[in-house]
């Protein structure tokens, strides 16, 4: 079970609501022409520490195509954002 980025899909186990750990959250990201983030939620990016791509479940109807960036904001905060190729939106995610 893989939720599309941005969907907060939940499930019920023995009557209890189960939620995904480290689910992506929609983010407002401004990127340059290469797709590298310049601003995350109106805070300027000071440094891109690492970038990587995740392509998975391409054999299903819900493929995962993401371009991840680990960035350091000017405030000093470390954060991970990704561009979701399936939905065309940006998201932040912990645990990536």
């Amino acid at each position, binding site marked *: 079970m893989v939720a599309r980025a941005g969907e907060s899909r939940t499930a019920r186990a023995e009557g209890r609501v189960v939620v*995904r*750990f480290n689910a992506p959250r929609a983010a407002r990201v401004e990127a340059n022409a290469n797709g590298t983030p310049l601003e995350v939620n109106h805070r300027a990016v000071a440094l891109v520490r690492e970038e990587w791509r995740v392509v998975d479940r391409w054999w299903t109807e819900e493929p995962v195509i993401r371009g991840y960036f680990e960035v350091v904001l000017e405030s000093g905060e470390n954060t991970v954002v990704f561009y979701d190729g399936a939905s065309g939106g940006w998201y932040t995610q912990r645990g990536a």
Partner: protein
Amino acid sequence: MIACLTIPGLELKAALRRTPSLALRPAALAPEPQGEPLIGPVTAAAEAAGVQPGMRLGEALATCPSLALVEPDAAGAELAWEEIVHALEDSGFSVDPASLGVAYFETRGVERLYGGLEPALRRALAAVGTEWDARIGAAGRRFAALAAASVARPGQTVVVADDELPQFLAPLPLTLLPLERGRYEELEALGVRKLGQLAGLPGGAVAERLGPDGRRAWGLARGGTAARVRGRRPPAAVAASLEFPEAVGNELTLRRALAGLVETALARPERRDRFVRKVALAARLESGGSWRRALTLREPSADPDRIRVALSPRLVELPGPVVELRLELVELTEPTGHQLELLAAGAEDRSRLRDGLRQVRASTGSGSVCTVVEVAPWSRVPESRALLVPKDE
């Protein structure tokens, strides 16, 4: 004042140290083995023959058939640059090495030591030496300092006062701006060829036409923002190297050699229990060139397996058989500050934790305390690895 020291063509100069006779002949840095066939920096003789840096190899050879190609020596260039930065630091400058051949530093802290701005800049040039044809630009802002360095001759310093800045920047070419090649052409097609022409346009219109990159370039053309220069923390000098009796191209042998190097470097007493944040793997190639890749670990670590696993994929990128493999621990964490466990594993603590969780649940309601249950820890999709399951008992 912010000073910018530049050494154009540092990679070529470093590579030419092996064959100094080529320095006076038409020569260019050969393209990277797995990259586009574009030549790197060129010698003055090659430039006089019409060869430009960044030209296609075929075009360059057609322009100057006697052009000699110099094998890149990436590790040698890094090492030479490190020595230059170190020499500046030894002279009291707090240096921010922006890229290979470009470094910024503030002069404010050392002006009194050397008797003014000009003597301080001359001291910086003397520290670097005459071999590299270094030049320095100084201004109130970073970009302006870089622009000043770009017009300085080898061994010269150019200082631009704040009130002269707009006039100084106006006639300079757009190529100083960090833009993609297509953007320059787009601007030239619009009749904008100089920084002054770009700076004279309304910022909003530039942003609308060229996007955030263009907006930033417009800001730089007007002098850039007044940001301070933060000097780097000098890198740790912990390294281990292994010289092979004969050139090795076998990946399995290289992996074993890497494992040995990681163990050796981590066991060095200079490491002093510090964790590794950034590592670099360098190799001397049989062909005479060199290769180097640096990697920042996602979490500082002193675990040899983790560092080995992080570096192993880089071995595939080696362009040819290797004569020597070298591992450098470039950045280490402070000896203190490693996160300890919040609670030691003990029955009493567990009981207190249970009580605490019961109180949280009582005050915030059912479902507020959850357990993380791993369901697919191997998954490449982070949200598929674990679930948050309410813990109501």
